[in-house]
């Protein structure tokens, strides 16, 4: 089998879901920093979202499983800490998918611009921490529903 082009590998990675928020893919999240060949070895460079995020090892396993499933044999996953991951790297389609799923996407202002349920701008922070390291808990004061906000870092 000829070795797949890096574009093909990117396409495969577009289809690997985030293990904690499966509605978005790893590429939507912006954590795949590079795909390149070094000799015959395919090197995929991944940056962690939060240094203690337990999903990091699952993400690496999912990448490896997906690429091996497509027949990639010589594979290396490389961790890159710098530049540190920022939610600016999240794709627009990733942001749209988050919102449709009920998670308010990250905003430079530091808080959600509206409730992902009813669209009201009357929202308040409940806690800076949520069900995963990347999320905070907010509440809509119009429809009274709590919701997750993807923190902007």
């Amino acid at each position: 089998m000829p070795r797949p082009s890096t574009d093909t590998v990117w396409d495969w990675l577009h289809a690997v879901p985030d293990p904690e928020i499966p509605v978005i893919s790893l590429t939507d999240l912006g954590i795949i920093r590079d795909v390149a060949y070094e000799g015959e070895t395919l090197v995929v460079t991944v940056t962690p979202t939060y240094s203690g995020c337990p999903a990091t090892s699952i993400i690496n396993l999912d990448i490896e499983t997906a690429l091996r499933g497509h027949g990639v044999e010589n594979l290396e996953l490389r961790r890159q800490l710098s530049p540190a991951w920022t939610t600016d790297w999240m794709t627009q389609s990733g942001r749209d998918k988050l919102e449709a799923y009920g998670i308010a996407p990250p905003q430079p202002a530091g808080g959600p611009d509206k409730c992902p349920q009813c669209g009201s701008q009357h929202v308040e922070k409940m806690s800076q921490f949520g069900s995963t390291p990347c999320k905070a808990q907010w509440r809509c004061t119009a429809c009274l529903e709590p919701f997750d906000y993807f923190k902007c870092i």
Partner: protein
Amino acid sequence: MANVDKEMLAQFLLRMGDNSLILGHRVSEWCGHAPVLEEDIALANTALDLIGQTQLWLGYAAEVIGDKTADDLAFLRDVWDFRNILLVELPNGDFGQTLMRQFLYDAYQSILLPRLAKSSDPRVAEIAEKASKEAAYHVERSADTVVGLGDGTEESHARMQTALNKLWPYVGEIFASDAVDAAMAASGIAPDPASLRAEYDALVGNVMAEATLTIPEGDFAHLGGRTGATHTEHLGHLLTQMQWLQRAYPGASW
């Protein structure tokens, strides 16, 4: 790696990693016990960030020391080999005392880490760049909580003042520079801790004023953690829990 004595660099990295390891373990003791669900989740997430940072600091320390892993350093050293400040090994006390300690530590990290992100050692710089983002929202939350409880009810105010009185004598150790710090400063790896004191006092002073709390007078400081010379009796008890599995079943994994 910058041109520096490896032994000195290893000591510096152990100080960074042991601070986040021991505080991360202490904070994790709240898991399932915090007063409300949101606070429980917040403390667990804070602990998780700290343990994540530990893996990076001790991972690098293990490489510098050689023939070790981050897990070896966390689970197979005894009290006298730990280099964390005494502040982080103290028992949690009540919720207020835990959050007061967290703020006093977060304030320090929020000032130190952005400086370390410009370290002459690229490994130190990249770890600090990552960790400083986490420290920034840690200090935002712990400062808010200190203000909320300090400027809260009579009961919460009294407890926060008691916590500050108890913990303040442990703050001075953060800035007690020694030969390791001098070596780090000389090689541009890390700033001299003493040089951070003014900025720290300003930050903590502002938050305590807003929290209507009074910083105790006097500059007495309990020392001995970051040198390993005199840890409190509490660290050994902590290690008996944290290290039990690897001590009882060497090499166990899942």
